[in-house]
């Protein structure tokens, strides 16, 4: 028994699989600077370009025919259009349609970044990078949304926009506390938007990488042990399916929350 164990343990120099955090590292591909600021073209920039390029290619070829009876691609594009349009109309009302291009772009951008991040890397050819797994990107998008809310809110309502912090029907002695709470909750919006997307992408990709790492390690062990690799393999398949759902869901959540925050600016005091 002991000899079997040691025989099995012998070939156990596990191959050096890449660590689960390596996939998030940013490498400079082409140096570029604006004044003193380093804005080099990196693998992150490359994958932003790929996502945007994929969106442009898909939507421009889907809408080229402008057919009355849509083809397959045009149907998908129209489903997405109606999906986001209904979301905007439902959350903000007809007046919100002026923000429709923004919400649509946001949804497609995040959705494609999330989905492209799930493509497996091909060693020596491509190294997949998920742009939305970085807080800088998600926080940037969240701040863009909040900036639009603040600017449009003051532009449309003037100082009346501040009524956002003063819910109606609150007894006066409670008002200072409520205003404070509302203000803090407003400040936490961009953070929660940014961290929700970033953390979902980060966690999903770490789990995928760890499970995939198990497969490599177990296969590398050789012999009977390699057979166990089927379990982390099945786990990886299951988590990949789950992550596909999460990729869509997080894009949707980001878009719908953007709509809800924009609604505060459009219909201030109606909540």
């Amino acid at each position: 028994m002991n000899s079997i164990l040691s025989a099995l343990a012998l070939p156990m120099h596990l191959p050096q699989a890449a660590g689960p955090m390596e996939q998030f590292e940013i490498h400079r591909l082409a140096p570029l600077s604006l004044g003193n600021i380093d804005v080099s073209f990196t693998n992150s920039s490359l994958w932003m370009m790929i996502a945007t390029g994929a969106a442009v290619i898909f939507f421009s070829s889907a809408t080229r025919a402008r057919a009355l009876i849509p083809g397959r691609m045009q149907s998908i594009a129209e489903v997405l259009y109606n999906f986001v349009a209904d979301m905007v109309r439902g959350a903000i009302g007809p007046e919100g349609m002026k923000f429709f291009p923004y919400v649509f772009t946001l949804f497609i951008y995040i959705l494609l970044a999330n989905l492209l991040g799930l493509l497996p890397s091909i060693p020596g050819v491509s190294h997949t990078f998920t742009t939305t797994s970085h807080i800088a990107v998600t926080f940037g998008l969240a701040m863009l949304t909040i900036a639009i809310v603040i600017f449009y809110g003051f532009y449309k309502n003037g100082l009346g926009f501040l009524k956002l912090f003063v819910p109606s029907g609150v007894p006066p002695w409670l008002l200072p506390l409520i205003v404070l709470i509302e203000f803090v909750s407003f400040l936490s919006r961009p953070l929660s938007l940014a961290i929700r997307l970033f953390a979902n992408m980060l966690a999903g990709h770490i789990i995928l990488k760890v499970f995939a790492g198990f497969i490599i390690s177990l296969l590398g062990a050789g012999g009977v042990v390699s057979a166990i690799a089927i379990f982390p393999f099945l786990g990886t398949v299951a988590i990949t399916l789950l992550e596909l759902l999460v990729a869509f869901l997080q894009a949707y959540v980001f878009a719908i929350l953007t709509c809800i925050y924009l609604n505060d600016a459009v219909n201030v005091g109606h909540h």
Partner: protein
Amino acid sequence: MPIDVLLIAAAEAAGHAKSGGGGLPQMDFSTYPSQIFWLLITFGGLYFLMSSVILPRLGGTIEERRDRVADDLDHAAEFRRQAEEAEAAYNSALADARAKAQTMAAETRAEVEAEIASMQQEADLKAATQIAAAEERLNAMKDQASTKVKEAAGDVAKTIVSALIDETPADDTVKAAVAGAISGREAAR
């Protein structure tokens, strides 16, 4: 045994997690300007293309289809209205024809009935005249017969009396006796 291997593999992976690259790459602030810069460029480019080309195209196609469908529905409603009108006209024509037929039938029936009635009246009249004439003749024959019976009875009575008492009664006496006998019989009857 497999547990051991799994644990070793897990430890390996976890070790990578701790030592891999030295900290979270997301917390490397030196990459932030580049990320934000390219985010703005790609997102801005996509927004521009979406808002100026793709979404108007998509929205226009959807709108056009909706108009077309609405038009087709309008046409269908118009055709339906026309069909209903035609049906109503047909129904009223049918009702007219039916009413006309009914009046014609009723007129014809009334004419025939009047004719039958007049013919029957005529026949009744003829029959009544003939019956009256026949009855008259019958009455005349009955009177004649009864006079002849009385004469015969008087003759027989006269003959019988003359044979019995050898005396010929006066005609008046015989006649009165016969009349008395007949009226007595009739009273007894």
